[in-house]
């Protein structure tokens, strides 16, 4: 019988090996997939037990914090947003059931304190619960409030304000806003709201830029050497491009004019000819350098920022695609841009041609109050040189002083800017009316020592850029400069 007993033991060994194989599969090989299963609430429950760090405004105002509920084993933390809808964008939300979004999502690792593996092992040895870091942002609460209040007075839209020298994002407002505190109870309602309050229009909204894009064309013309500030181009009331007539407002004939007059009066035929002269190759080269065609380098989740550029439906077109570059040059064709992108254009011109990476965060503070990480401003690109930037600034000052953007003027402070009014008739999001425009203003102030670069846009308005967008620029810039 002994032979059989040994064989039986062999079978037991095999059976137990099967058990080890199954355990290995669940505990190690399939573990990640199991953690993603909808039926698995363990990862969420564990998350809930971590005290997430606070998110603070530049002046220390608390934008998000975690409050404890229950005690002992039942202790869990729930997110609170004291600022309500004012900071819904760009802060976003973080809840166990509904997930997270925007700034909360992008900075999740810092906020839950998963900075260093070594640190958390030490904490575990000391028997300390994992605790998150605070993240301080560059958001300026007063300017954010001004931006949102102004927007709410005129319509849906967005405002982005960036400190040109550093890329610090001080305002990122989107109207309609949403209150992150409502997410746990009303997420379905907010998701199905036809006005899309959860859409961050500042970074995800893609709008026709209208004449604000002429700043890019002018930059390309000057920097490539195709024109100088003195070069004149004949600008008749109407020209024909690709078999279609292309006109100035009211068909106004300007005759031979240089850049400052063309920009001040936003002359379409002038910029169309410059665009044709530059060609698609050069135009796309400069657009790319300003950040068009790329995912914005801001600290927000990649799926919550949109690229800007020329689109065929959802497909981004490049320099080799059939594009009517003359119409691109003054902001028409199938150009679609985010307010963030246009603020970056203004910031690059303001910063002597250097585009800094736009960043919402400023520093990370660990639970002991030490700054563990600090924003180190970095250059994204240099689309134009300092001389071009200075020449362009002078022309943009003309827009505010005597041109189409006079409502952006701040008493005693030189302002450089550009208006834009793109016609968006039959736009379904605006109700399909024929008179709706996308109104814009981009610019910076003070023009001689730029502290802030801003893009403001209002959608579905019958008004022009100077009427609704320029005043927002003025109010926000004034608030920031006077602080």
């Amino acid at each position, binding site marked *: *019988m*002994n*032979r*059989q*007993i*040994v*064989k*039986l*033991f062999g*079978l*037991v*060994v095999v*059976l*137990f090996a*099967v*058990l*080890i194989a*199954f*355990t*290995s599969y*669940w*505990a*190690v090989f*399939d*573990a990640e997939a*199991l*953690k993603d*299963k*909808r*039926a*698995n*609430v*363990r990862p969420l*429950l*564990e998350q*809930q*037990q971590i005290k997430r760090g606070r998110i603070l405004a530049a002046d220390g105002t608390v934008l998000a914090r975690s409050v404890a*509920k*229950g005690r*002992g*084993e*039942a*202790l*869990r933390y729930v997110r609170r947003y004291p600022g309500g809808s004012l900071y819904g964008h760009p802060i976003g939300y973080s809840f166990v059931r509904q997930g997270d979004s925007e700034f909360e999502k992008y900075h999740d690792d810092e906020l839950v304190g998963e900075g260093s593996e070594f640190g958390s092992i030490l904490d*575990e040895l000391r*028997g300390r619960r994992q605790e998150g870091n605070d993240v301080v942002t560059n958001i300026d609460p007063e300017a954010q409030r001004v931006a949102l209040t102004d927007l709410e007075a005129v319509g849906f839209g967005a405002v982005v304000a960036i400190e040109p020298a550093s890329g610090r994002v001080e305002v990122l407002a989107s109207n309609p806003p949403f209150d992150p505190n409502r997410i746990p109870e009303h997420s379905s309602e907010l998701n199905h709201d036809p006005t899309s309050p959860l859409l961050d229009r500042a970074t995800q909204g893609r709008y026709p830029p209208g004449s604000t894009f002429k700043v890019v064309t002018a930059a390309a013309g000057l920097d490539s050497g195709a024109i100088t500030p003195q070069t004149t181009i004949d600008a008749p009331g109407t020209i024909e491009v690709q078999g279609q007539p292309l006109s100035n407002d009211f068909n106004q004939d300007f005759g031979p004019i240089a850049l400052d007059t063309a920009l001040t009066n936003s002359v379409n035929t002038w910029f169309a000819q410059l665009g044709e002269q530059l060609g698609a190759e050069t135009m796309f080269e400069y657009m790319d350098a300003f950040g068009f065609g790329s995912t914005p380098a801001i600290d927000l989740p990649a799926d919550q920022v949109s690229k800007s550029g020329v689109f065929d439906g959802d497909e981004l077109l490049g320099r080799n695609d059939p594009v009517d570059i003359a119409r691109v040059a003054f902001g028409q064709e199938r150009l679609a841009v985010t307010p963030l992108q246009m603020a970056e254009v203004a910031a690059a011109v303001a910063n002597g041609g250097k585009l800094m990476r736009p960043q919402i965060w400023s520093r990370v503070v660990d639970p002991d109050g030490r700054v563990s990480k600090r924003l180190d401003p970095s250059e994204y690109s240099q689309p134009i040189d300092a001389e071009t930037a200075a020449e362009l600034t002078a022309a943009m000052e003309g827009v505010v002083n005597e041109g189409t953007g006079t409502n952006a003027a701040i008493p005693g402070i030189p302002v450089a800017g550009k208006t834009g009014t793109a016609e968006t008739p039959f736009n379904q999001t605006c109700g399909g009316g024929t008179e709706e425009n996308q109104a814009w203003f981009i610019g910076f102030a003070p023009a001689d020592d730029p502290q802030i670069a801003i893009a403001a846009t209002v959608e579905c308005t019958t008004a022009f850029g100077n009427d609704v967008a320029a005043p927002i620029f003025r109010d926000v810039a004034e608030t920031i400069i006077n602080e």
Partner: protein
Amino acid sequence: MRSARNRELAALIPVALLLSAGFAAVFAQENARLGDASLIYGAYFFAVCLATHGYLRLRLPDADPYLFPLVALLTAFGLVMIYRIDEELARDQANWFVLGLVLFALTIQFLRDYDVLERYRYTIAGVGLLLLLAPRLPGIGQQVNGAYLGVKLGPLAFQPAEFSKICIVIFLASYLREHREVLIVGARRVLGLPLPPLKHLGPLLVVWGASMFMLVFIRDLGSSLMFFAAFLALLYVATGRFSFVVIGMALFLLGAWFFASTVPHVHDRVEIWLNPYTDPRESGYQILQSIFAQADGGLFGQGFGQALITIPGTHAPLLPAAQTDTIYSLIVNEVGLFGACGVILIYLLIAARGFKIALLADDGFSKLLATGLTAVFAIQAFVIIGGVTRAIPLTGVTLPFISYGGSSIVANFVLLALLLLISDRARREATAPRGAFALEGA
């Protein structure tokens, strides 16, 4: 020949250390919740183990030196895990541990000459079957999760299947010892397969019928599987005919398949096993939470006292039946794949020692009894660990010596006592001069 006991004593020392470390870890983690006296438990446990060791020194000086330390290790580990779930439960378990050792000692005291078991084999088989039936008897039977597993006699509640398995193994060992020759010699070939003669096949078909009966009326798929597998193991060892095993397995699968497609309870168990995600909140909840808990364990686990067992802030179970059915998942969660492999290794070592005893034993009954007891023990561990790891359908069988439960602890200590009794005799005879003793069996 006292060196066996010295080795046993030496082996108990790492057990004590491990136990103290385990209690200390849980205590350090949960000192806010648990009472101060908790560290005394370690010392108390060790003292009980030493007393048992002293008793073995007196009564069974030549018995296998490693079985008791291995079992003590499992019990200690189980106590730490249960203590970590609930202090009250751990206190119960500790009491049952002591009760188990008392029965262990009584078994050794009164069954020194365990051959008497052979004489009463039909009585024992009857008791075993009665125990199996008891949960269905009106008045005392109890239904748990759709299965009739428990019996309640006044204040005393227990799971008779745990004791029944020992009775059935004793009967089978005795029956097969007597009939193995006829089963082998009288076999006739039918369709190329050697079949035992019909009149000897009868009792075996009765065993098959009993396990099918359990499947349908007791609704205990786990015990049914365990009993039948132990039966096949014994049949194979007794006859050396693998074909009998194949026939037996085919019969079991046929029966299981038939009942799985006709009896809703069995059908559900199989359905949940194959498609747990169909109803993840109700029927599939336990098995899914069991593997989710393992997924959180990873290689090294989250540490003692770290696993989530209930949903924080509520009493809703996150790992249902953590102290009994799914305790293995809790172990994987807290000590990881490595810890779980350690536990499986201990079961494997116990099985190895058990089969070693069977190899050393001289007479057929001792051999078959040791084989049967070891097999039923190993298969029980396989059935429940396989269940919670989704290798086989999940059934409510306890993890021997680790799961919370008095019947399980006490019955398994009786099983251990029998193994040590066989071992003591076998090892004494192996060292004694050969001759008079070696005639029987072979």
